[in-house]
């Protein structure tokens, strides 16, 4: 709580602008590497994998990537995504015969969707739209 009066000296001018910037805290050091969560909480029940299917294909979300990024499955297969990242992700369709969209998936949770129509589905994480995945249904 101890703001020094020096740090808070009122600043009036253009010249002082640079002082304000210099006084403020610098970039947080980035030497610590991000470490993947070792012990994920118990997986939540599949949110939308209601349809009973004997065929299942698992996709892991890890380090901001869908693994595998491209999956080919037979019609009627349920794809289950498991989030192993520390960050929250979602599954959201961008193109394909059917639309699907998961709720927010915190660490350790999973989401399932059963593909009943053939075609190529492209999806993303809506929080990190640079994460891309493809499901090919034959």
């Amino acid at each position: 709580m101890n703001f020094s009066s020096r740090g808070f000296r009122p600043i009036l001018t253009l010249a002082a602008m640079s002082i304000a910037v210099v006084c403020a805290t610098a970039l947080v050091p980035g030497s610590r590497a991000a470490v993947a969560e070792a012990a994920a909480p118990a997986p939540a029940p599949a949110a939308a994998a209601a349809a009973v299917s004997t065929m299942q294909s698992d996709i892991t979300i890890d380090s901001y990537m869908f693994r595998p990024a491209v999956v080919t499955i037979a019609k009627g297969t349920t794809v289950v995504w498991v989030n192993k990242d520390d960050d929250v992700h979602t599954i959201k369709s961008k193109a394909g015969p059917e639309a699907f969209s998961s709720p927010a998936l915190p660490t350790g949770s999973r989401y399932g969707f059963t593909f009943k129509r053939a075609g190529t589905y492209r999806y993303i994480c809506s929080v990190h739209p640079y994460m891309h995945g493809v499901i090919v249904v034959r």
Partner: protein
Amino acid sequence: MHVSGTPPRPTPEPAANAEVKDVSKVVESNVTNRRQAMKCLLWGGAGVLWTFAGGVPRPLRLGGEAEAGEVRGFTFGQISDSHIGFKAGAHPSAEDTLADAVAQMAAMQPQFVIHSGDVSHLSAAEQFAVAGEIMQGVKRDVFYVPGEHDTIGDDGKLFFERFGRGHGTGGWYSFDAHGVHFVGLVNVVNLTSTGLGSIGAAQIAWLKNDLKGRASSTPIVVFAHMPLWSIYPQWGWGTADAAPVLATLRRFGSVTVLNGHIHQVIQKVEGNVTYHTAYSTAFPQPAPGVGPGPGPLKVPADELKAMLGIRRLEVVSDRVALTDKTLAQ
């Protein structure tokens, strides 16, 4: 008091009475460094303090009432990325660290507080409720903009229901306080395919209209969740259509852009525009491009609070002085 959105309640605060007494303080504290004072100030005879507004010197009378529309000294606060609902391993709850941040903020007695988004971790109604409750501890009005964690699945419907009352369609808004014009932008709905923030044509048109007719000497403070400058686009640390926003702001003599999103303080100055990202109150993130992704940094428990923080902003004349303070301080 305001164009749209909820105006800040007038809050009695001794430090904000920037009349005779405070202006004298300004002078006194600055002349402790005479060289700096001579460089910074133009003296126009006894009792007149010259300040620069948009590059144009103008007098601020000592011993008299500040003129109408003149910027008075006041402070406000910034809290960011509270991520209520976030939990990972041994990390303490985001609720506890936000409560710490709020207690520190309350002790500063700012006039009001800005929350620059990612209030919640998962856009859940109860997370918004808990966050709102904890934030009440600052005992001041809080002006929110959403982060991408606040708009999951519903484009921010729940967020705006709780924190966007009185804002127009789209959730962006502006208000005036002590002669400073504040603009809250929404850049987390319709993220681009590369993950960058997006403002959109409708909001840009609104902003142009909002700023139209304002004197270029009006200090502007813009706040939005995702950085309005490109910090690390590979992780979505930027806003795709920031350029037209900045073009609209360029004519103003003092523009301060406050962002969150990257959970660390990075700053940039470009002409009259200064950009500042902020600490999170929940967890730190890696430096740009370090590691496989922008996920939470795992740090030893005893180091965590040194990597979380809040910001105090002091407006004096048309300039904004920032002080970032970690929760460990």
